[in-house]
């Protein structure tokens, strides 16, 4: 197990540095792709072994602060999702960047280093390690956000950096509070705060965690950086939105809520209604804003904000049923959103179209791409055979169990809004005539097969709930202790 | 209270001179006056030290080998202050050297004018 963890953490660093090897000048994508495959294999292999829950400590950075890793259910879920999607994402990035050649080596170096940061977050065994990699994630994704080095990209980059650093600083403060009250930082099921911890401290801690990780998880007032960051190249957006960054925020919330604060303390804080309201507002408001966006990537970005609301909703609730749904959505949303962004990237590369109003009739020109887009958007809305339906189903069920009718209303409203902002795109693309002049140059296969693959995965996961449900159920049980 | 204050008048005077020196350094923009202010300040401290070593009715501490029951004043503060004076002289010498250099380079020894010249340099 130790070996596998080392592989998952260290290989991407080596891969990132190998980009600069003189022999690979022409093909800088080779080491990232190889390392992504190795990491995915390593993470998959972790499931086979029996080392779940074993802590492997690397070294003590300062007394009380050690760099330690551990694989448990939730960790493997996130690690597998990220590592699995990293392979098509890297392949896609290679094809995409072939059309936009600009400082490729730098791009691929940071792209691969992000994998280390993500794996570190997923596999961390204590708060310090989590914080370390959370901070690292900011620093390695920032150069990706401002990759194009246009004024717009730089503005987006500064915004991203300011939000993320401020968030990380709050996480650090939360870590300090944890250390001061619990005396340890090692994650433990059921939380670290003892029964004697005062409600004020718990509330303070929860507030800090929501702000600190909420920045990356784009909880509503803290989401502004995410649509702005659309200035980045599309593979990066896919990475930010579907695989690494926002999910890292959600995972951070999950980890700290259930392994630091603990379900009982969460209950005692009496915050759940407020937090649920926050998540609900995020869901509905972001959907409404998404409706008004004409820029495709921005619409997708607001859709992400809204969908992340589903995930945070479950985490905030502290209720096993809702948590189950939210973790299902954690995986499913990743699959769907990465497909959507791949589609957007392919459209931009091929036709240069960035706005929805210009997309009419595009479906007939690029059937594979828009087909995948249609599949993923149906999933977003919650149409039956696609995986998005399942997560919504479990969320509904959880809301019923938790006797929270208001959540059901929010979910329904959001599904409706999703339909309003996704279906016109699909319908226009397939059933309306071209309104504007554009020419398609034809796509290389590298820009098609990754998105077809992920769309297919969406359908597979939709048809076979047994692939995901039992494992997520176990995860919830282990988290709720 | 007043008795005590008057009885310890060297200390009071030392404090007063110290304040005067400090004020001179901070309030004057002429660099020479600042250097003089530093000296005044240090003199006050020397006075304080020497006064603290005084013994009423004491003799200068030059040992008298023939007479063993002479009361001497405490020689330690004086000896220390000798070192203090050395230091003060070196600081003054260095300060004067710097003032000469500044006058050569700026053509003035007024701190405000120098600040103005420097801000014009930067602009």
């Amino acid at each position, binding site marked *: 197990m130790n070996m596998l963890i080392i592989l998952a953490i260290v290989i991407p660093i080596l891969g990132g540095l190998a980009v600069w090897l003189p022999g690979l000048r022409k093909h800088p994508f080779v080491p990232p792709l190889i390392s992504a495959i190795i990491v995915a294999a390593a993470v998959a292999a972790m499931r086979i072994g029996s080392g779940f829950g074993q802590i492997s400590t690397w070294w003590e950075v300062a007394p009380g602060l050690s760099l330690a890793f551990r694989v448990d259910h939730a960790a493997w879920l996130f690690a597998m999702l990220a590592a699995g999607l990293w392979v098509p994402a890297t392949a896609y990035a290679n094809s995409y960047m072939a059309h936009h050649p600009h400082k490729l080596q*730098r791009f691929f170096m940071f792209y691969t280093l992000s994998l280390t940061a993500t794996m570190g977050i997923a596999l961390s065994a204590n708060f310090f390690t989590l914080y370390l990699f959370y901070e*690292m994630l900011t620093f390695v994704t920032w150069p990706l956000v401002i990759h194009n080095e246009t004024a717009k990209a730089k503005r987006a980059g500064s915004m991203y950096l300011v939000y993320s650093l401020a968030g990380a600083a709050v996480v650090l403060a939360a870590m300090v509070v944890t250390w001061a009250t619990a005396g340890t930082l090692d994650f433990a099921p059921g939380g670290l705060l003892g029964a004697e911890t005062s409600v004020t401290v718990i509330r303070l801690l929860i507030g800090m965690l929501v702000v600190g990780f909420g920045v990356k998880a784009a909880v509503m007032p803290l989401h502004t950086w995410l649509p702005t960051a659309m200035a980045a190249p599309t593979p990066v957006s896919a990475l930010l939105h579907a695989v690494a960054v926002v999910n890292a925020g959600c995972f951070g919330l999950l980890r700290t809520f259930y392994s630091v604060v603990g379900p009982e303390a969460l209950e005692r804080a009496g915050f759940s209604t407020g937090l649920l309201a926050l998540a609900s507002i995020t869901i509905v408001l972001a959907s409404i804003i998404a409706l008004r966006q004409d820029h495709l990537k921005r619409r997708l970005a607001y859709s992400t904000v809204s969908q992340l609301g589903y995930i945070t909703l479950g985490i905030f609730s502290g209720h096993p049923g809702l948590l189950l749904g939210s973790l299902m959505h954690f995986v499913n949303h990743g699959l769907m959103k990465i497909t959507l962004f791949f589609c957007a990237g392919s459209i931009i590369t091929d036709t240069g179209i960035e706005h929805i109003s210009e997309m009419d009739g595009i479906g007939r020109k690029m059937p594979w791409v828009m087909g995948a887009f249609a599949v993923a958007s149906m999933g977003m809305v919650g149409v039956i055979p696609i995986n998005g339906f399942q997560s919504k189903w479990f969320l509904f069920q959880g809301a019923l169990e938790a006797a929270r009718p208001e959540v059901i209303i929010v979910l329904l409203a959001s599904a409706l809004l999703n339909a309003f902002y996704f279906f016109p795109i699909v319908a226009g693309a397939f059933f309306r005539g071209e309104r504007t002049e554009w020419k398609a140059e034809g796509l290389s296969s590298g820009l098609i097969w990754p998105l077809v693959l992920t769309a297919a995965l969406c359908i597979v996961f939709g048809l076979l709930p047994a692939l995901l449900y039992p494992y997520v159920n176990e995860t919830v049980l282990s988290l709720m202790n | 209270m007043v008795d005590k204050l008057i009885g310890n008048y060297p200390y009071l005077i030392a404090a007063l001179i110290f304040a005067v020196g400090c004020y001179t350094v901070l309030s004057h923009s002429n660099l020479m006056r600042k250097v003089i202010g530093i000296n005044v300040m240090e003199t006050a401290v020397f006075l304080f030290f020497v006064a*603290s070593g005084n013994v009423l009715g004491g003799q200068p501490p030059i040992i008298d080998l023939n007479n063993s029951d002479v009361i001497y004043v405490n020689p330690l503060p004086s000896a220390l202050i000798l070192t203090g004076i050395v230091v003060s002289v070196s600081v003054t010498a260095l300060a004067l050297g710097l003032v000469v250099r500044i006058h050569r380079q700026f053509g003035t020894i007024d701190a405000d004018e120098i600040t103005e010249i*420097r801000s014009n340099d930067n602009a």
Partner: protein
Amino acid sequence: MLDNLPVIIVVSLLMTGFLAPLFVGKFRRTTQVVAGMLTLAAAGASAVLLYRALNTGPVYTALGGWEAPWGIEVVVTPLSAFIMLVLTTIVSLVMFYMPHEQEDWPNQKVGWYITLVLLLTAALLGLTMSNDLFNMYVFLEVSALASFGIVAAKKDRNAGDAALKYLVLATIGSGFVLFAIGITYAVTGYLNLGFASQALAEGQFHPIITWIIATFFLVGFGIKAGLFPLHVWLPDAHSSAPTSASALLSGVVVKVYAVVMARVFFGLFGGAGLEALGISSLIRIAASLSILAGSAFALVQTDIKRMLAYSTVAQVGYIFLGFGLGGVYGVAAALYHVFIHGLMKSTLFLSSGKVVELRGGSRDISGFNGVGKLLPIPMAAFTLAALSMVGLPILAGFATKWYLFDAGLSAGIYWVPVVVIISSLLNAAYFLPIVWRVWFGETEAHEVSNRRVPGLIPLALILAVVGLIPGPILRVLEEAAVWLIS
């Protein structure tokens, strides 16, 4: 022999310092190397002393055989041995940089510069280990004189003005220190720290007297160490000096003053006494203001050396904050920061000195655009040090923050973490843009004849290793802190 080692270190540095101008004319290179090797040897001797002090207790030496309280006593506790080690290590590494800087200096100037640096080192060593207040004052002044000299070493006119400004304020500072020593002597009759503190504790003096002593010490040392709002001389002096001098002044000199202040305070009044006098909270507030104001001023600078100098003001604030918080963790944080800030600041000054040299003496931040490609190794060191300054985990700066948090929370002072976190955000705000410029800025192709910055690589390596495994050092420092507090 071992008992005399502290004195031998100081005296040999002094002697070499005064021999340097005599030999520099004929054997310039040799003189430079010998001076460097000597400080390196002093570092080795300090390490021996540290080992000895940790294992068998402090090393006491009475000068001339006169025992305290009559004679001058030199004592090497784990604390002073550690500071000596830090000081000599950094000075020796900067010494190895100096020949590079001095290539086009006349012989006479090189000689005097080496004298001043060695004199400064010797004086600071003496300052750290002296247990006698007046002796401390003398070393304080000697070190100050040497610092004025190296600040004025550049020929441009700003250097002279900065040196005089430094001189005037620092002399006011020493005036205050000397006055405080005078009052201490007048009321207790002792100059030896241990005896004076005993007399202070037993004497039942009016609190106003102890308060005056403490405040005068605080003002005096505060000026010397650049504590806000007494820092006004620091940015000028540290930015106008030659690169090696900036590295030394910012890297070690100001912090030795802070440590000596802590020694005097804890030695005379004890931690509880300081808290009762309200001096601790005064230090904490001034330190927090230093941290915030220094970072804020650094943010608006466009001159790289001034920016680094303002950052020193902020970083010295961390050290004072640690001492102000007291307790093992607070003091250990302060001492640890003395060490790593010395490394970080010297690295930053040396590497940006190279950039300034490359840009023909222009110190504007825009000069950093794209230098990463021209000077990859110095700039890697710069990046490492800059990110350590921000305090990212597994880099050196993080442990300070962590210990300060711990000290703040266990002392029940809850705003300390807030100040520290805001400050690290500010640090990020002024260092990250430069790091970005270094690696991804655009620059015209430029011929770089000499990429070497001697002494930089060891500094950066030590910094990296300390960041990864600060544990052993922190444990030593906790022991040193215990010595200081008790």
